[in-house]
């Protein structure tokens, strides 16, 4: 086996994230507690659960935007690209998509070619990024956020419902792009999703969060009718298909 392949393979099994006994509470209200898991480099972790179960709170805790108990340990020097669920941008904010992406390129200390590559990957037309970000459609802005996350070649992409507001063909394109990045560049994916079929198809591991319940494991182990019934409180069916929701 060539030395380079050995190195690549050993790199792929390194843990990019280790979480021990993670808990978040808002006053007396416990969102979740005692959450322990790890994420290996180049894998795909899906987080599922009903609304209000704390999925976005989990991501916010992992990036340090939310106070928590327990341990969150990222691998040294890991670069994170994060796409939040929803941003409230005023329509008249004089900030174009280009301004926003240039800011990321400057902060990440990469050239403008990194912006071009990111735009190409997410399929945004050039004229769209000259518009103020508040004037973009929901789908256009979502693609811009994904492009922003990609500038600087992150090791980990954390996406909170990345396909929300994106049209059906766009969802498929986005799913292909994300999983293509994982396969070709070894990018680790952490995705909050409501589309169980996509989770079943693409995720290496699944964390499910529900009020007072949590489970962690491979999709085939977790996405069983009995577990889904417990998580969502009702019968949930899903089909395996290609698009991302």
């Amino acid at each position: 086996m060539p030395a380079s392949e050995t190195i690549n393979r050993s790199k792929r099994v390194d843990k990019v994230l280790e979480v021990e006994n993670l808990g978040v509470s808002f006053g007396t209200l416990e969102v979740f507690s005692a959450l322990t898991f790890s994420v290996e480099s180049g894998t795909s972790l899906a987080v599922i659960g009903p609304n209000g179960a704390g999925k976005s709170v989990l991501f916010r805790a992992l990036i340090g935007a939310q106070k928590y108990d327990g341990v969150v340990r990222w691998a040294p020097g890991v670069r994170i690209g994060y796409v939040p669920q929803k941003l409230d941008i005023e329509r008249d904010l004089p900030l174009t998509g280009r301004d926003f992406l240039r800011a990321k390129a400057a902060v990440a200390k990469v050239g403008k070619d990194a912006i071009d590559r990111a735009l190409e990957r997410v399929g945004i037309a050039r004229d769209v990024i000259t518009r103020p970000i508040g004037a973009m459609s929901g789908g256009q802005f979502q693609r811009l956020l994904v492009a922003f996350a990609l500038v600087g070649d992150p090791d980990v992409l954390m996406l909170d419902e990345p396909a929300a507001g994106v049209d059906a063909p766009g969802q498929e394109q986005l799913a292909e792009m994300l999983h293509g990045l994982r396969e070709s560049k070894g990018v680790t994916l952490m995705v909050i999703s409501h589309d169980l079929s996509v989770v079943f198809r693409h995720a290496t591991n699944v964390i499910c969060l529900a009020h007072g319940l949590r489970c962690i494991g491979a999709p085939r182990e977790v996405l069983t009718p009995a577990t889904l019934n417990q998580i969502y409180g009702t019968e949930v069916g899903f089909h395996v298909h290609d698009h991302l929701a």
Partner: protein
Amino acid sequence: MSMTTSLDVGSLALSLAMAAAAGLVGCFAVMRKMTLAADALSHVALPGIGLAILLRANPLVGAIATLAAGTILIWAVERHTGISTETIVGVVFSVALAVGTMITPGEALIDALFGGAGKISSIEVVAGLAAAIAIVVFIAMKRHELVVTLVSPEIALTCGIDVSRLNLMYLLTFALTVALGLRYLGVLLMGSLMIIPAATARRLASNLRAMFSISAAVAVLSTLAGTYIASVMNRQTGPVIISAAGALFFLSLVRPREA
């Protein structure tokens, strides 16, 4: 050239440098939806001015001291309690205005509130110009981090930006800009020179560079026109400068929005 003339030229140069800095700093205050907070922040200088006058010290030193203390207080309270900036400002800076009014001697109060106190020494001019340059350099160097943070503090964190430290640095820069303009505009009006030009620019600009350029230009133009008109009409400079800025803002409303 006489000493008086050279000092007047220095004073004018300082007022224009202060206006340009105010225009740039104000852009982020307007984009971050902290216009009321930013305007009221200047009020915290008043107790410092009053205290300095009572202690026979330089009023500007007192103003800078209370502005810095007030800024750190607002940052710390916001950080540790999660209370919004607007709320903290509403409480702290209104109290500061009340206390400052109580302790500032009557004859100095009008100057402290609206600006226009005497000649400016050459040392003040040099120090002021250095401060204005530092403010412009700060905005130029940190604009990208400020842009990412205003769109999403969470995204900024994942970009390696120390959001809390950046917020403190921005607030201190804002406070320094307020201190720079107190001589000309006073504690009641200085915040307006930071907000009105930026609000005008926000209406007219479609990108960040245009926002910076228009805001700085409106602030400088208002200061230049206000200073000239005030000298011709023998009025206090500060209110005329803000009236000029206000006129430009209302003029900008004539232009329909693009988006």
